[in-house]
């Protein structure tokens, strides 16, 4: 077996300097006793150590079946030991546990489908992250992102005016093509609030442009807020800071409620969907989102089926489609996504495995957000993804998730794949009828 590499991260190292055996023990036991409850107990008691989950994990498969990267191996290196020792674990152990839980598991939940008992490894990794948060040994870059969330209510330190400015600017640009188009801000009573993630106003403004063009051409009654609350993303969910997750989601839903919209449509993002549709709403006391949340994939499907967008030209080049875990395993949008892809792309080639069995991009679960120190390890841990992409033989991969884009881009680069990534909205925008364009 290859030697295990323990990566130095400033956030973990400097945080660990302040740890004492007492603090570690107390924190672990407090989280395990008060927050974990019966679910953890049931999992620990049921696991038969059969290893059936191993084959599910891209880390394990990409790392020559090294058991330390198997799902159950990750549990062994973290929470089992903590339970076994009743929290009496060393600082060194905790540093390694953070690396395992925060950077070697995407919380993609592929493994849960392979376990005969449905044991959710991702849940156990989230408990480790919660403990790390309380011990202040979260990796530097993702902690910085969580700080941004807390201070600005968005992921990218975007200031209140920068958000509005980005929308004004995109509206101006769009009018060159669609002279009557608008990005209606603060339109009370609109049908839809469109929400995005922090990187969009910062680096990927063309996605706001494309979404706005689709909204305009489809004749939607929509709006965007001119206040914080526009960002649906959530790295606090992935650092174990559930209090901050709640704060972010409260603002997002209250913003939609203030605008009196009937639903929230969100852009092509996986983890944000998990946060608004599953974890964030629930931590606040809502079983379901208080205002319905529609992911872009579902929204496109609705528009197409209601005849609100029409295909003007086909995207002839062969394409494949990457199913993002959070909206496919998490929400079952794979068939709807395929219908939209097929409507625009006649030469659609499935990657194998696909749908709910697709391999994760290795970026999700906040892993890519842990930044440069972990990049090589992350990309090395997803050789199977590269092989899976390559086997399709196509040069265009549609990935309707921001993190997936980041992760796949790195894999394409490292394994020298001749492949280009696209968001589905990009293809729709390019190929749909635009009756109002000049």
């Amino acid at each position, binding site marked *: 077996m290859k030697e295990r590499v323990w990566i130095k991260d400033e956030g973990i190292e400097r945080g660990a300097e302040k740890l004492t055996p007492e603090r570690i023990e107390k924190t672990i036991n407090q989280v395990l006793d008060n927050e974990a409850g019966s679910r953890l107990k049931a999992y620990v008691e049921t696991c038969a150590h059969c290893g059936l989950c191993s084959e599910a994990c891209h880390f394990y498969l990409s790392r020559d079946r090294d058991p330390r990267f198997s799902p159950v191996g990750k549990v062994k290196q973290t929470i089992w030991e903590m339970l076994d020792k009743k929290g009496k674990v060393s600082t060194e152990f905790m540093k390694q546990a953070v690396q395992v839980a925060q950077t070697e598991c995407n919380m993609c939940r592929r493994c849960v489908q392979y376990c005969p008992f449905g044991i959710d490894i991702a849940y156990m990794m989230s408990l480790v992250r919660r403990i790390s948060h309380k011990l202040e040994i979260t990796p530097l870059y993702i902690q910085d992102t969580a700080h941004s969330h*807390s201070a600005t209510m968005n992921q990218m330190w975007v200031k209140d005016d920068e958000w509005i400015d980005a929308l004004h600017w995109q509206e101006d640009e769009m009018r060159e093509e669609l002279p009557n188009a608008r990005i209606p801000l603060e339109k009370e*009573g609109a049908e839809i609030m469109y929400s995005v993630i922090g990187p969009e106003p910062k680096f990927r403004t063309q996605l706001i442009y494309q979404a706005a063009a689709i909204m305009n051409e489809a004749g939607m009654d929509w709006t965007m807020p001119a206040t914080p609350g526009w960002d649906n993303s959530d790295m606090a969910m992935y650092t174990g800071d559930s209090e901050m997750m709640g704060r972010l989601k*409260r603002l997002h839903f209250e913003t939609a409620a203030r605008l009196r919209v009937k639903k929230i449509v969100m852009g092509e993002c996986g983890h944000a969907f998990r946060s608004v549709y599953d974890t964030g709403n629930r931590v606040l006391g809502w079983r379901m989102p208080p205002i319905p949340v529609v992911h872009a994939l579902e929204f496109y499907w609705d528009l197409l089926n209601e005849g609100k967008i029409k295909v003007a030209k086909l995207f002839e080049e062969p394409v494949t489609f990457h199913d993002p875990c959070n909206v496919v395993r998490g929400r079952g949008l794979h068939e709807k996504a395929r219908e939209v892809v097929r409507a625009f792309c006649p030469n659609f080639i499935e990657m194998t495995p696909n749908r709910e069995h697709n391999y994760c991009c290795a970026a999700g679960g906040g892993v890519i957000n842990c930044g440069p120190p972990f990049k090589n390890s992350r990309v090395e841990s997803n050789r199977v993804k590269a092989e899976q992409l390559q086997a399709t033989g196509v040069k265009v991969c549609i990935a309707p998730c921001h993190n997936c884009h980041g992760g796949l881009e790195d894999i394409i680069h490292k394994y020298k794949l001749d492949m280009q990534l696209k968001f589905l909205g990009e293809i729709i925008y390019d190929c749909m009828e635009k009756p109002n364009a000049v």
Partner: protein
Amino acid sequence: MSDYSAWDWGVGSRTVADLTECDCDVEWREENQASPDGEQVGAVVKTGEGEFSVCVNGSCWEPRYERIWYLRYSPDGRLAGLANDQGDWTMCVDGEQWEESFGFLFNTMFSKDGSVIACCVADSMTYGMVVDGVAWENLYANANNFHLSADGKKSAAVVQTIPLGQAEVFKFKDGIFSVAVDGEAWDVNFVNAWSPRFSADNSSVAAQVRLNLFDYTIVVDGKPWNAIFNQVWEPLFHPKSKSVVAPVRLSGKWGMAQDGKVIWQPSFFQTWQQQFSPSGDKLAAIVCPEYGRWTLAVDGKPWNTTFGDMVMDMTFSPDGKRLAALGKQDGKWTVFADDKPWGGQYDMCFAPVFSPDSKHVAARVEKKGKFTIAVDGKDYGQGFDQCFDPTFSPDGSKVLIRAIADGKYMRIVEPVAKIIG
């Protein structure tokens, strides 16, 4: 609010403006806003290539701008929009712009009576507030959570007082945020601060703070409460004293604390948006008494009527004896008052409004794409393409309905008795 007894309360309906008419060329008309007294309807209009104005009752403001946005009526009936001309931003009020211009303006706020108009400013990468055209003397590297006191005399925001480089997480944890009042920052910093609020006499400010990554409390004039909580929400001053209440979370459940002491034992899955009755004798909040069920609690005691989707817009009656809010169940909204829901269900409801005598509750409602108002659960007979919030006459016997149908903006005064039959 302007003296609304002087408004036209004569029963009847009249068309105030035909929205298809304007004395300037209009390429398109944006969202309509109705003045509080119902006598005006205004909207941003595109008047030419890259040129916008505001059309009020068929007549355009004189100035033209490259962009005008966030057009809103102040409670005293003035119409204000944020306007940009060649990169300079100003506030244009009834067609007259502020003397000064700024790098960027956003988030317009009004004092309760509308006499003060304020907004946020971003100028050369510094941030603060502008009140009636005058910016704070000190601007900050970042500011947010802006707040204007009820009388408009004071303004506050969370401000960043120490510069932060990329990924400086340890510096961040030492605290780089504070609260500034009229631009003057407190001399203490916190990891985070949110939602500054003024006391009734403006002499104190309270805010939520995070002391480290997981200890939360309330701070008043820079001094944190002695108690620490797992989480807190926005503070609120008592209307007649300096006492502060805030929802707090302990051992996974939410309750209420006053001046650092728990007054509602933490027993709820959620507690927020608390309000005092006007005299301050009662405290109510939106609560989640049972996981996934929402209602109101008065002095810590939850109501029986619960909703599964959401509860919002809690409103006390002027006499403080009644309480109403919106509840949503299975995707449909209704108003509930005094622990009883209205019979009707709507696709959307807007914030409930009490009559000055506290006897009636009204709300703007939407059903199947048509808007109207409802009083005490009874819908007004006519549906409109658009409708604004209802206003009761000073004696509570009539209601003012502002609405748009077939391209015409109307002002209707109807006896309450006729609506509730």
